[in-house]
């Protein structure tokens, strides 16, 4: 969440990142070529069934029986999420929102993991999990309040077991861990999932959540969307080894999954959630993906990254590959796509209208909900504020 000046677009990210001391560092591997990447649907839309290794096969088992209906459902989720996101971006351009943090490119990571959840699971998002919110049934227009500036969180977290967006990087990983500790105390078999980014992985709070969850064996899944960038900083500024490996040192497994592969994200998250439910404690899932757009509408990525990088990732588009698979396997026909297109447009319209109709908050909202049980000073200041406001009303009325 940043605000930028509109300085001229000049420098470009140079190809290599040197360590400060000029000493050797680990070079960044080209995306998607890591042997450790779990992938169940290739960019070309082919199912990876006879997995290279047995570990992959284990994940595959979680989506082996997936029905055409479910596949179309995942496709629909991704398409509608993208449509919603695009609408929000354009609402920001129109001045209806102050800011928007687009999830463009991360639909598979979010829908795959989001659809792996049960209703009784609990989600702790960052500020970019619009696709997960969609899976939880949070009305998308409710997400827009904070970006419009009418509230700091516009839904009931317990309504859909989807916590408020958290802006302070990494904080929510601890909340998720604590919540999961509570789930375990209750003897419930639900699980908790904490989302965070590659940049957030550097925060002490995330490390502490690894420690706490491991020590208390809390049923939590850490879902890190490594979208390669933390605003202008590439992932090499956060780590010199793949992020999923971080978990090992805390005594729980980490997996890197193709974050643009909705099936792999669904499968791996289901596996991790099952571990949590089964009393096996935390898991770190690193969804290897790409932030296709700017960090937020205030950001200008041409200052720091090359267009070619983005283009290379376009070929791995999460929606396109599932569409190819649906088409190739005859799991969806023209009418499905046409209906979905219409549904998308309707969603865009609904969101647009809802945002435009969103009223500004009452001035007295400043003083609301500061405390649950009240506070004398808040009461006093509210009263002063009321008198002050009234004094203008008098003048205007006079």
């Amino acid at each position, binding site marked *: 969440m940043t605000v930028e000046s509109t300085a001229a677009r000049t420098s470009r990210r140079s190809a290599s990142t040197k360590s400060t001391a000029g000493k050797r560092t680990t070079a960044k591997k080209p995306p998607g070529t890591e042997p450790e990447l779990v992938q169940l649907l290739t960019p070309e839309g082919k199912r990876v069934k006879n997995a290279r290794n047995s570990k992959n096969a284990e994940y595959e088992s979680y989506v082996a029986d997936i029905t055409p209906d479910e596949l179309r459902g995942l496709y629909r989720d991704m398409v509608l999420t993208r449509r919603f996101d695009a609408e929000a971006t354009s609402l920001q351009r129109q001045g209806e929102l102050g800011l928007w943090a687009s999830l463009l490119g991360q639909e598979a990571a979010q829908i795959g993991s989001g659809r792996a959840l049960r209703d009784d699971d609990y989600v702790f998002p960052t500020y970019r999990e619009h696709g997960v919110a969609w899976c939880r049934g949070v009305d998308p227009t409710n997400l827009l309040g904070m970006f419009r500036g009418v509230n*700091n969180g516009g839904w009931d977290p317990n309504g859909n077991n989807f916590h408020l967006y958290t802006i*302070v990087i990494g904080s929510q990983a601890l909340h998720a861990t604590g919540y999961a*500790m509570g789930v375990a105390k209750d003897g419930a078999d639900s699980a908790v999932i904490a989302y965070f980014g590659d940049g957030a992985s550097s925060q002490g709070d995330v490390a502490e959540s690894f420690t706490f969850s491991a020590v208390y064996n809390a049923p939590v899944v850490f879902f890190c969307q490594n979208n390669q960038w933390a605003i202008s900083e590439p992932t090499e500024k956060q780590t010199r080894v793949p992020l999923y490996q971080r978990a090992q040192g805390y005594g729980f497994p980490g997996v890197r999954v193709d974050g643009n592969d909705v099936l792999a994200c669904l499968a791996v998250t289901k596996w991790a959630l099952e571990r949590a439910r089964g009393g096996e404690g935390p898991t770190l899932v690193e969804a290897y993906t790409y932030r296709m757009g700017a960090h937020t509408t205030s950001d200008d990525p041409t200052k720091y990254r090359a267009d070619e990088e983005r283009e290379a990732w376009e070929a791995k588009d999460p929606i396109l590959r599932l569409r190819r698979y649906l088409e190739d396997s005859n799991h969806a026909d023209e009418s499905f796509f046409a209906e979905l297109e219409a549904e998308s447009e309707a969603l865009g319209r609904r969101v647009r209208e809802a945002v435009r109709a969103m009223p500004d908050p009452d001035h007295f909202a400043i003083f609301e909900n500061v405390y649950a049980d009240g*506070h004398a000073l808040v009461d006093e200041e509210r009263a002063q504020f009321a008198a002050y406001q009234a004094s203008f009303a008098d003048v205007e009325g006079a």
Partner: protein
Amino acid sequence: MAAEKMAVAKAINESLRRALDSDPKVLIMGEDVGKLGGVFRVTDGLQKDFGESRVIDTPLAESGIVGTAIGLALRGYRPVVEIQFDGFVFPAYDQIVTQLAKMHARSLGKVKLPVVVRIPYGGGIGAVEHHSESPEALFAHVAGLKIVSPSNASDAYWMMQQAIQSDDPVIFFEPKRRYWDKAEVNTEAIPGPLHKARVVREGTDLTLAAYGPMVKLCQEAADAAAEEGKSLEVLDLRSVSPLDFDSVQASVEKTRRLVVVHEAPVFFGSGAEIAARITERCFYHLEAPVLRVGGYHAPYPPARLEEEYLPGLDRVLDAVDRALAY
């Protein structure tokens, strides 16, 4: 049988025990709170009686303690977390200020965070660095938190009950140098409101306002002043946020002079807020400016200097004299 003489530490221990007993959602968390019973024995015996799932030794990470307590509160628990010493609350400061304090408002009232953060605070025990600080002003400036500090065993018992029952986060500053001071505690009394000040001693010439460890000092100062024929009113503020300005105002309208005493540095301390607001409320009543007695603008000094650094009887009486000289 309900009234018993108890030390402050024991009173808090009994209060925690009662809370654990009566509400299965209450948890105790912190470093060494389990078998050891905390470095001051405030949680002594609680893990033995309530188990490791209710009284939880945590990893050594304060942000983690408060952050997971928030998560537990979201799940319906009522965590009472211990920060081992005042100077070690700062790693948790971000979680307290950006999350604990703001989440209720952020959620438009949908979620509540009934978390109590216990902090043994203040000096006078001859400890090493970071073990004697009074950081209450650093929390009072932050909306969404309530800040209290008992001065005696009875308040320690009852204010802890009320803090745990509160649906708001409460930072509970425990006057560590008074942990061993005993007083009658009636565990069947009906306590007054948590955030109301109490007139400890009535007087007519000047009001001394304090909270936590400094209340006793102010009482001693009032005793000493009485011998010189000065009648001082002593107020135990009990709560720093909200601060019971009404009670201070009522007292000052009577005595017309106010001295505020706290261990924390004077600069940007509680005394500043009290002086500013009371001067505004009582501008025509005050015969003298509100004077402040507190720590200097310096890091808390090594133990062999703390007597010079901390407000003591002479410094309080000096301020009283100066205020009376106006």
